[in-house]
């Protein structure tokens, strides 16, 4: 009975970075996470949404979709844009690789997502968009219903 889902659509405005992470954190709260787990999730969401805004849409205002699914003790977070896409995903995943150093990007976004979440999948097609799927496992049977 704890399974749940939600889908959020927001425009790619930078002030929505904070909104997106609050929404996902509130949704994750039903898994009775620790403060540390919530902080991990907020940070990973912030990275993916920021990437959609600056890389995917290069600051044009378009649609970002955030979907969350709770299945047993697992939280899936899917963040999708329909922007320029990533030509070389392997290179993009490398720590310190960034295509926008002039914006003071550190190239650590994907590394943060990988470190803070239990898994990270990147699907991307040039000029179609990018879909990031991240999973976090909550191993404690702590949900009472």
């Amino acid at each position, binding site marked *: 009975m704890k399974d749940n889902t939600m889908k959020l659509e927001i425009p790619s405005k*930078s002030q929505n*970075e*904070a909104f997106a992470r609050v929404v996902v954190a509130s949704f994750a709260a039903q898994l009775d996470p620790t403060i540390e787990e919530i902080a991990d999730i907020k940070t990973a969401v*912030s990275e993916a949404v920021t990437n959609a805004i600056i890389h995917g849409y290069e600051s044009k205002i378009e649609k970002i979709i955030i979907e969350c699914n709770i299945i047993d003790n697992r939280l899936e977070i899917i963040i999708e844009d329909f922007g320029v896409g990533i030509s070389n995903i392997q290179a993009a995943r490398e720590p310190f690789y960034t295509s926008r150093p002039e914006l*003071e*990007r*550190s190239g650590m976004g994907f590394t943060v997502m990988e470190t803070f979440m239990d898994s990270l999948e990147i699907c991307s097609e040039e000029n179609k968009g990018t879909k990031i799927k991240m999973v976090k496992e909550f191993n404690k049977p702590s949900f009472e219903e």
Partner: protein
Amino acid sequence: MLIENKKTSNKIGGKEVNIKFNNQKNTLFVDLNGELDHHNAKRIREKIDSEFDENGYKNISINLKGLNFMDSSGIGLIMGRYKLVNELGGRLFLTNVNFRVNKILDMSGIHKLVDIYENNEDVLKHL
């Protein structure tokens, strides 16, 4: 009555990163508060850099005590300020680095470039 008509000051995005400046021993002391993400980083960068340029400091010391969120945009911001002072032969200090911020700094190897101290007094001792 318990609830007054006061502002929540709980702005999203806005979540106002306040910046306070203070000058001692040629060093620009910066207090960051709030959330350091991409949205806020631009504003913070501009404020620090214009203060730094106008007043001819040598070093920058950033106090992260009031920071309650930071993502990899923070690494970019810190790296950028490091380059700024380093070109002029100065140093970058970070103080009050909490557990979460440290977790992110750790990934970036920033520890090798900047000097991390407990607080401002500690920084002053090492100047």
